[in-house]
């Protein structure tokens, strides 16, 4: 009996050794509601710029990756508690977030944030401006004189402007541009805000090794121009 216990214990230790080599499967957490960065396509699968970037990074780093969707609100808590290993959700690199998690190198250039409104003459100083909760845009508006109206999803911010609840919405230009093109009711304002340090992958602070692996893959994608090709394809701002 004692032997049996010892053998099982030895097996368990050996098993955990092989697992401990690193992540056998890297789980990528995304929001799935922020085109062109990430969205669910007609088949209900994660698609978009970050889908292609993520798959390419995993291929180059020789990682097996799995896509998971998670609500934006709880996307950081679920990363630090270990429900997935990487946040890939159009998340801009900011100092506040960097205190809680670590970021890889940015894989998009800092993208201008734009205002979308129903008319071109909005007084941004005193207007009611919609933004998604917990975004750099929401933090920016809170620091100006305008009134901030927060919503859980990007989609609801647009609906609020069209319903007249808010005067304008502030979000990444690459998100707003397709909407302004498709919908004649709304236009982009001329004023832009430069916020954040580009979009990066979020990883746990203790996961330094994974971060280095991801950085190496991003660097190789930057070097051979494949990242620029994807940026051009999905229209997510300036090239590297």
């Amino acid at each position, binding site marked *: 009996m004692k032997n049996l216990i010892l053998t099982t214990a030895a097996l368990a230790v050996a098993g955990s050794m092989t697992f401990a080599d690193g992540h056998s499967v890297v789980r990528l957490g995304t929001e799935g509601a922020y085109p062109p960065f990430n969205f669910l*396509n007609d088949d*209900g699968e994660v698609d978009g710029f970050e889908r292609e970037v993520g798959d390419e990074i995993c291929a180059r780093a020789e990682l097996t990756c799995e896509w998971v969707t998670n609500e934006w609100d709880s996307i950081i808590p679920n990363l630090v508690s270990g*429900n997935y290993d990487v946040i890939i959700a159009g998340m801009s690199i900011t100092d506040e977030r960097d205190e809680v998690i670590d970021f890889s190198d940015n894989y998009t250039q800092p993208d201008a944030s734009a205002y979308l409104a129903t008319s071109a003459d909005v007084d941004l100083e005193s207007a009611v401006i919609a933004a998604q909760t917990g975004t750099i845009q929401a933090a920016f508006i809170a620091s100006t004189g305008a009134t901030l109206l927060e919503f859980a999803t990007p989609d609801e911010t647009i609906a609020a402007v069209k319903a007249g609840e808010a005067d304008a919405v502030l979000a990444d230009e690459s998100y707003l541009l397709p909407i302004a*093109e498709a919908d004649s009711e709304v236009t982009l304002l001329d004023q832009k805000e430069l916020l954040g340090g580009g979009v990066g992958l979020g990883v746990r602070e*203790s996961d330094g090794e994974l971060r280095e692996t991801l950085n190496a893959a991003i660097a190789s994608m930057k070097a051979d121009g494949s990242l620029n090709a994807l940026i051009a394809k999905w229209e997510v701002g300036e090239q590297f």
Partner: protein
Amino acid sequence: MFSFCTDPASLEGLQWLSCYLTTGKHMSMYWAFGTVLLLLAITAPTALAFGFAGASAARSGIAPLRWIGKTYIAVVRGIPDIAFFLFFVIALDQAFEYIRHRIKCPDWDEPIRQGNDFIVCTAAKLPLGNAPQWVHETYGFMLAVLTFAIVFGAFAANVLFGAMRAVPKGQLETAEAYGMNRRQTFWRVLVPQMWVYALPGLSNLWMVLIKATPLLFLLGVEDIVYWARELGGAKQPQFTDYPHPDWRMWYFAALLVFYLCFTKLSEVVLSRIMARLTHGQATAAGEAQRKAAA
């Protein structure tokens, strides 16, 4: 789905709609109806079991058991659902992983908490990091069931506690006079009679539970309200074969119909159960039943 769906842009009217409503994404929404019904089917009895245990503990003769029961009822009922769902589930998940960590990796020397991070050895992850996605989803679903059961169990416990007290004292005294001990009185007299007093309160809870399922998405389980919001949102032609403006109103209208039908069905079933439970009871309704039959 259908053979004519290859080029949706060229379709119109009903054909377009039939293609649109059978995309993979819509199929996920139809599945979500199943998820919600399954959740209710599992949660309701589990919550009732939690409630029964809580209520029995709260009226127990053993003081520590009574304190546990009363604390459970008071604390869980006092915490807002959304806070409970955001905090408790992560804490519960971490507690499971911590226990497994202690058992599976006894010679791990790094701290579990490093800054904000919660780190256990890979073998203790729940589910294992390399488990297929459906295992993760099932695990999330089970956590959801457990959390719902604990929250609604506390409310049910309070209802049952009240119902146990509502059983006429004469009934219990008679049982004692017949020589039944405390346990026998509880199981043979009190429990069978309390349901008629508990059912109105429990049916309220059931109705609230039906409508509480959107909290599922906080736990990463995609429920019907999530899909209605996702599918109904405006879609630009770059990102889909079926571009459309904001259609959330229609999706939510469909949900409204679903919920109304479901609550109606529940009411019918509950009133039948009530009629059965009333049979032979010393309540006004029981008396009316007896007279009508006579």
